[in-house]
């Protein structure tokens, strides 16, 4: 079975969409025989501007360096981007969409015209504020993605992200614990 | 300071056979500087900016240098010596040398006041150990006497010529010493080859500072300034005696004037023997000399006041 999976992330500069895309690439690549690529479309965006990032996963070496993608999964990191970005662009017919929102699924499908797609919602902002005191939705969204795709178990994904954060060596224990909590909660709550 | 006889016994760092004009003071200044260097204690490595001095002393396959010497371009003597000095730190750290080496960058006013100012400022800010000597000949002499920001008010150069409407350079000379002062170096000074003992003292002091230092030296140019070759040192002396070129140091921000002429000569004495100022002496141009005198007096008074105040950084 091919592991090929193309993922697109929509967020705002400063929310960690690029970090999330790259973190996922790093996590997935730790598995033997799996390749990944993480990149973003860069402008001169300062904090707040909409940004797009990509993750490619494959069981072959990834050679394509173009920005073109027909994603299997699209993640919307910022609820305020609802309706501002074209989530469906290039999305495969049976594609999945994961939205960070406090709305329920039906409302989101209605709002974005996502009838026929596999839509999931998770309130990553609330989870993040509860666990970390700030709305940094990128790590909980990785937790939600792990659940939706089945790429990682809850333990695997929370352990993986925590190890990466620890490796960075610049985060206090409180932040690391908060991230662990946020990931696990998002993993459980995504629906 | 040792007697001249003792210095004359030393092996010279700069030798003859170079192609400088007869009466050029570039080599006079460098001979004095290298004689002052305490070469029993340390070795010297030099980086030179492109210019008269560089093309005349390093003309393949000849070199007039008895010390390690590098030239790469016009605007980068300071960043080049910074690189050499950085490598010296590595050699020291790795035990590749146990020698004490001191570094000198040499450039003229073009490579210092103008095109090389950025590299100089950067290298000073980073704190490399080097003495930067600027041989200020008041114009781009290597390319044929074009005006620089070091060209004094009123001087006729090939790009600030005396004409029927404009009489030479209309702007005063840049006060590079003040520009450099802003870097808060431990030691900067102004010197003249006419006052060799003073110049040598300054070089010796500067080379003993473990950091960047700067010496601005007047470098009379027989060709560009228009005076007979044998007058070169005399012109430098006149610059000093008229206070056109005050001899002073700024030590940790504190001004020390090294020479106060008992009889401060009028600027005419300095201007008169030089062709570049000849037009100032034409009837109707008296106000230009007055203006020149005013500028010189103003700066001299300011220096005196600074010395009197005794303030440092």
């Amino acid at each position, binding site marked *: 079975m091919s592991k090929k999976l193309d993922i697109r992330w929509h967020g705002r500069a400063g929310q960690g969409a690029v970090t999330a895309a790259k973190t996922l690439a790093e996590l997935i690549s730790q598995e033997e025989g799996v390749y990944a690529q993480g990149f973003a479309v860069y402008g001169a965006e300062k904090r707040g501007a909409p940004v797009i990032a990509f993750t490619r996963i494959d069981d072959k070496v990834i050679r394509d360096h173009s920005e073109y993608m027909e994603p299997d999964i699209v993640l919307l990191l910022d609820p305020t981007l609802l309706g501002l970005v074209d989530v469906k662009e290039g999305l495969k017919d049976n594609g999945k969409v994961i939205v960070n929102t406090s709305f329920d699924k039906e409302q989101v499908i209605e709002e974005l015209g996502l009838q026929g797609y596999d839509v999931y919602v998770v309130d990553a902002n609330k989870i993040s504020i509860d666990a970390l005191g700030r709305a940094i939705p990128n790590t909980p969204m990785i937790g939600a993605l792990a659940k939706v795709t089945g790429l990682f178990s809850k333990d695997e994904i929370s352990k993986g992200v925590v190890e990466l954060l620890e490796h960075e060596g610049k985060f206090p224990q409180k932040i690391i614990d908060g991230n662990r909590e946020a990931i696990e909660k998002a993993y459980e709550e995504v629906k | 300071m040792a007697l*001249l*006889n003792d*210095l*004359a016994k030393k092996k010279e760092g700069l030798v003859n056979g170079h192609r400088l004009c*007869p009466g050029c003071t570039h080599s*006079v200044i460098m*001979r004095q500087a290298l004689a002052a260097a305490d070469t029993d204690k340390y070795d010297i490595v030099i980086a030179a900016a492109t210019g008269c001095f560089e093309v005349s002393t390093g003309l393949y396959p*000849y070199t007039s240098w008895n*010390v390690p010497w590098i030239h790469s371009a016009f605007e980068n003597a300071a960043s080049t010596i910074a690189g050499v000095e950085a490598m010296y730190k590595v050699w020291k750290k790795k035990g590749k040398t146990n020698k004490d080496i001191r570094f000198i960058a040499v450039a003229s006013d073009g490579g210092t006041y103008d095109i090389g100012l950025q590299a100089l400022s950067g290298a000073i800010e980073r704190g490399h150990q080097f003495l930067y000597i600027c041989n200020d000949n008041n114009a781009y002499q290597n390319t044929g006497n074009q005006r620089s920001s070091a060209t004094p008010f009123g001087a006729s150069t090939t790009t600030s010529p005396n004409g029927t409407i404009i009489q030479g350079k209309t702007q005063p000379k840049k006060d590079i010493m003040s520009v450099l002062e802003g870097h808060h170096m431990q030691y900067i000074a102004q010197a003249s*080859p006419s006052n060799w003992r003073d110049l040598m003292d300054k070089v010796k002091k500067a080379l003993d500072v473990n950091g960047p230092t700067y010496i601005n030296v007047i470098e009379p140019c027989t060709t560009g300034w228009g005076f007979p070759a044998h007058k070169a040192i005399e012109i430098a002396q006149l610059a000093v005696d008229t206070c056109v070129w005050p001899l002073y140091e700024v030590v940790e921000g504190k001004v020390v004037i090294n020479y106060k002429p008992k009889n401060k000569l009028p600027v005419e004495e300095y201007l008169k023997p030089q062709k570049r100022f000849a037009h100032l002496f034409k009837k109707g141009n008296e106000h230009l000399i007055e203006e020149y005198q005013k500028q010189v007096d103003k700066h001299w008074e300011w220096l005196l006041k600074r010395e009197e105040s005794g303030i440092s950084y």
Partner: protein
Amino acid sequence: MAEKLLDWNEVLIGATIKDPGNSRSYETGSWRVERPVWNPDECIQCMFCWVYCPDSSILVDENGKMTGIDYDHCKGCGICVEQCPKKSKALTMLLEADAKGKSEEEIRKEAFSK
């Protein structure tokens, strides 16, 4: 002087020169129109000529005392004469044309008789 110059595959890489101070072999004395002439009898060994010479052309013995002029390199600028502090100068200029074919003694006589 028909010296054979090196071919491209003989030159040292990077145009590096390994022979320090080799410009001494290039004689700039031929540039001279006038020459300084030294009178040892008048010389007080102040060495001002040495410290002001642009062409390192004041010959010095092992005691650091002046012994004459390096005419192979002296360009005849005349700074030494100008800076010689004695009223009755120990150095004076003489046209090369007037020195031609004469002995050192004759040159000195010629120069200082003026």
